[in-house]
Every structure is written in C-alpha cells, then in structure tokens.
C-alpha cells in the first residue's frame, strides 16, 4: 500500500505585499492551492508608544494617542479620554457627549466606505473601489468643515470636546444624510446582489461562531459570525443608550442565518452605515445646548488632573473595527500616568482570521485579511529601541542623509530644510 506523499510549501504573504495595507507577515503552509495552516508574525510597525507614554503627561498623551492610527484616530482619542475621566472622576457635559457621538458616527461612515472599496479592489473589481471612494469624499468634506482636517480630527479633550458644531455644521450633516440615503441602494445592489461578489465572497474565510468566541473577535468580524457584541451597547456608553444602539447582525441585512464568511461581514458593515445615518439624525435632534468642556480654561487641565487622578480607569468604545480598550493608572500628585495600555480591535481579529483561513484557497487570503479591516498601526505599539551593537540613527542623522542624497541627484536644488536655531531640541 503506497502512502500518499504530500508536498507542503511555506509561502509568506507580507510584510510587503500589494494586497496588504500595512506590514504584517502571514506564513501560509500550502498544499497546492489549499491552505493548511497560517502563522501570524507581527512587529514590523513598532514605534515604542508605550515606552514613550511613560514619559509624557496626561495632555501630551492625548496627542500621542491620537496619532497611533490615521483612520481610527478619533476612537483612540475618545477612549483614552474616557479612561482618564473615569480615573479622575470628571463629569462630561451632555452636549459634549452628543458631539462625541456625532463625530464618532461620521468616522464610522468614512471607515466603512473605505473598507468596502478595499474589499472590492482585492477581488479585482476596480470600478467598485473608485465609485465607493468617490462617495466617501462627501464625508471627508463634512469632517473637514467641522473639525478642520480630513483625518486626525482632534475633537476630544479630557472633559469634553474642543470645537462646537454650529448651525452650518448641522446643515451640512443633514445634507450628508440625505445624500447617503440616496446612494445606499446602489451600494447595496453592488455588494449584496452582484454575481462576481457573491461568487467570491460567499463561503470564503469562514470564521465559525465558536472560533470567534474563543479568540475574542470583536467588531464586524464577530458580528458577522453571529456574536452579539458591540461596546457601545454592552458598556452603556455615554448617550448611546438614548440614541438607540443595537448590534447589527447579518440576518438584519441579508435575511439568512449568518455563515461567518466575508459576505456577512460586508453585510454587517452596510447595516452599520444605515445605523450610523439614523444615529446621526437622532443625535442632531436631541442635542441640548450648554457648555462643551468640563474645564473651560485649557491651561488648568494639567494642574487639575494632577490632583484628581488617583487610581485606575478603563475606557471602552466601539471603533469602526471593533472594541477598543484603554487602561490608565495614575497617582495623585504626579502629572504623568503610571501606566497606560491600549488594545485595539485588529489584534484578536487577526488570530481569529488566521484560524478561519484554514481550508481555503490562496486566492482568498487577501480578501479575508481585508475583510477584518486591518489597522496594524494600532496593533504594534511597543518599544523597539535597540542599543548595543546597532547604531541608533537620530532624526538629525536621517535628515542629513536625505538632504545629501537629494543634493547628489540634483545639485542645484534650492532650499535647505535643515532646521535653523532651536528646531526640535534634538
């Protein structure tokens, strides 16, 4: 009786790959085109944020935390502020909570539209990418009108929000809701009924309910498998209970039982776009007048936090990708937190999808990874400062090297970007 000899090949996807937005390495063990095992290796995007956080005070941490990720920057900012407010016992005025909810929902709109386009692009359907991203421009314009920037809005501060939404902003948001309501039928027709999309996304990268539960999957990844978890709902966060938030499950959108595949996650995202539009309408109706900051003067914030923060605080919020958790521990009398840690939604989702890819074909790897909406900038976050035998290049060295190279290529380039005078104190 001859044995069947199997040739298993290990192929790395990443860290640099056209289908991945951010560097991560998946080592696939393949048998022909079928995947046997997936191993996840992270660490390509480390920036040393937790180590830096040991050396910053509460307000500087807010700026640091915002810049962890570009797309979910508001979520990080919001969650961190909630954690500090819980540790310090600060009460946030109600109008500020409503504004936080409004900007949060706008961010969710823009992130979901981005992800729908990326899923379309990864199955070769470029037209969908361009048209969805064209639709996303409207949200970015409204966000720019409200907050001044298309990403990294910086709206939240500890104890409230920094900018108010005036009448003009309100009108812009109402126009936005009308515009999206008019184009959502087209988006639904593409993503839910198109034959190519159904052929590719149905039953691809199935994450069963058991695996989603064991691996702690969050966000649309978990809801697409049938788990009813949503941090705004299970936390009773802020004004969200008044606005009427419930987790969106695939059966609300497709009408069938959830399979846990990519199609279901896309359906959950489409349902969430509808839910965000409703929440925006309710929030604009119910928003009361009042002040928007707990401490109207910004320059007393650090001094007040020095006295008020004593103990630990946990903040949880539902970013577009899932549940975001921040933890802050501080001691009275010090203006720096003793410990800060964040956990972003992509981390457990990656491991859940690594289990879910077993048995699929290589063609589905990129679309599966795109379906959990990876935001690796948030995932790798810890210290990578290396001493010893390696040279540490400071910012000045890198800047000098790059200026030299430009001069080599083009000797009569005008302008000199070396910082004069004090510059950055490095």
């Amino acid at each position, binding site marked *: 009786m001859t044995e069947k000899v199997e040739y298993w090949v290990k192929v790395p996807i990443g860290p640099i790959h056209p289908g991945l937005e951010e560097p991560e390495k998946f080592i696939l063990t393949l048998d022909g085109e079928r995947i046997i095992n997936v191993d996840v290796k992270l660490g390509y995007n480390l920036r040393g944020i937790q180590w830096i956080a040991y050396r910053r005070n509460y307000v500087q941490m807010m700026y640091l935390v915002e810049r962890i990720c570009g797309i979910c920057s508001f979520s990080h900012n919001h969650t961190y502020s909630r954690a500090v407010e819980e540790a310090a016992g600060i009460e946030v005025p109600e109008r500020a909570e409503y504004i936080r909810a409004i900007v949060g929902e706008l961010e969710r709109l823009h992130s979901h539209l981005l992800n729908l386009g990326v899923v379309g692009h990864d199955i070769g359907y470029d037209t969908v990418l361009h048209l969805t991203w064209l639709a996303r421009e409207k949200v970015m314009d409204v966000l720019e009108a409200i907050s001044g920037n298309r990403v990294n809005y910086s709206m939240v501060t500890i104890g409230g929000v920094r900018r108010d939404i005036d009448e003009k902003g309100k009108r812009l948001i109402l126009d936005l809701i009308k515009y999206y309501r008019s184009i959502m039928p087209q988006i639904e027709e593409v993503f839910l009924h198109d034959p190519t999309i159904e052929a590719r996304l149905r039953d691809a990268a199935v994450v069963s309910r058991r695996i989603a539960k064991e691996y702690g999957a969050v966000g649309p990844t978990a809801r697409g498998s049938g788990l009813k978890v949503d941090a705004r709902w299970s*936390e*009773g966060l802020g004004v969200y209970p008044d606005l009427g938030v419930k987790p969106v499950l695939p059966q609300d959108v497709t009408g069938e039982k959830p399979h846990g595949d990519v199609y279901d996650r896309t359906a959950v995202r489409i349902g969430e776009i509808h839910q965000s539009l409703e929440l925006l309408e309710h929030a604009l109706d119910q928003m009361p007048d009042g002040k928007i900051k707990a401490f109207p003067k910004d320059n007393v914030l650090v001094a007040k936090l020095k006295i008020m923060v004593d103990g630990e605080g946990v903040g949880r919020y539902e970013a577009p990708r899932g549940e975001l958790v921040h933890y802050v521990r501080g001691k009275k009398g010090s203006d720096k937190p003793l410990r800060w840690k964040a956990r972003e939604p992509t981390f457990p989702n990656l491991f859940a999808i690594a289990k879910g890819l077993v048995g699929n074909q290589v063609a589905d790897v990129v679309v599966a990874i795109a379906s959990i909406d990876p935001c690796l900038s948030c995932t790798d976050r810890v210290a990578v400062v290396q001493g010893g035998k390696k040279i540490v290049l400071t910012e000045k060295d890198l800047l000098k090297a790059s200026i030299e190279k430009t001069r080599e290529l083009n000797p009569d380039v005008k302008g000199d970007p070396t910082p004069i005078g004090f510059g950055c104190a490095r």
Partner: protein
Amino acid sequence: MTDDNVIMEKVEVKEPTKEDLVAEAIKNRFPSAEVEIKENKWGKRRVWVRVPREDYKALMKFIVELDPEAHYSIGIEQDYGEELGYMSHILINYEEAPGVSLLVEVRAPKDDPVIPDISDVFPIAVQYEREAAEMMGIVFEGIPDSRRLFLPDDFPEGIYPLRLDEKGISEEAVKNAGHPYYIKGGAKK
C-alpha cells in the same frame, strides 16, 4: 432605554444589579479574593477582583462557568515596584445591555515572577501572555507558545522594555528619546 438596574437609589432597598450578583458569587466561592465594585461618574460600574496566584486559574474557570460566552478583552502587564502584576478585563453577561465588566488582577513578586497560564480557558490569552512575557519578564507556566510576539528575534535577552527598574531600557541605549519639555527640566518643580 431604561437602565433601572444601574441607577443607585439611596432611598429604598435596591434590587441587586448584575454586578452585585457576580461579585457575590465570586466572593462566596473564593474567600481569599478581594472584590470591589467601583462606579464612575456616569453610572458605569465595574467589578475589580484581586486574587492570589493559587486561585487564579480556578477563578478563570469559574468565570467561564458563570457565563460560557465570556469575552476576554485585554491583558495588561504592570510593574508595581516590588511586584509584577497581570490584569485582565473580561466581559460577561452581555446578552442584554449593559454587560458586566470584570477586571481580574494577579500579582507575583519580582524574584519569582511566575503566573499560571490561562490559555486553555481563553485561547486568545496566549497572545497577551506572550506580549507580557517579552515586555515585562513575567513567566507563565504551561504556556503553549513562548515565542516573541512583537520584539525582533535578535533583541537582547534579559532586557524587558517596559520595566521601570534596571532591567528596562537603559538611558545609554536611547538617544534623544525624551520630550524636549522634560529634557530641559520640565516645569519648575
């Protein structure tokens, strides 16, 4: 949406909230654990549990018995000076809003930093434990996968970046990594 079990009534007998029931159950089963319910300014209550090393794994299994759908959110490693700690946040009883937010902490002295591993109860915990092991130097006994998670493979052994004592990153290994505000001495102290 009526959250009538989260508003504190100072007048009559209040019906036990979900957090109270959970805290009672844990206290009855594990008398050596310290259980506390803290409520923040907007009415959210969290159950904070501190448990000694020996009962840690049994407590985790008990939590899964309380709610088989328990959701493990985060594992935070901490440096308390003389001790190392590991805190986990678990969400249980979330079928109806709001769920119960449970934080479990276990500590170990620095010269014996061994903590039991809970990856057979929560399979995702192994990834957080890998991170804690490489960042803080906690040794989890029985961990199935002890490779490095975030740090590169040629990072020197014995240096734990998030420790605040001599085993952390030394000042010579770092150039210009302070904020200019503090390099110049900070505020007048």
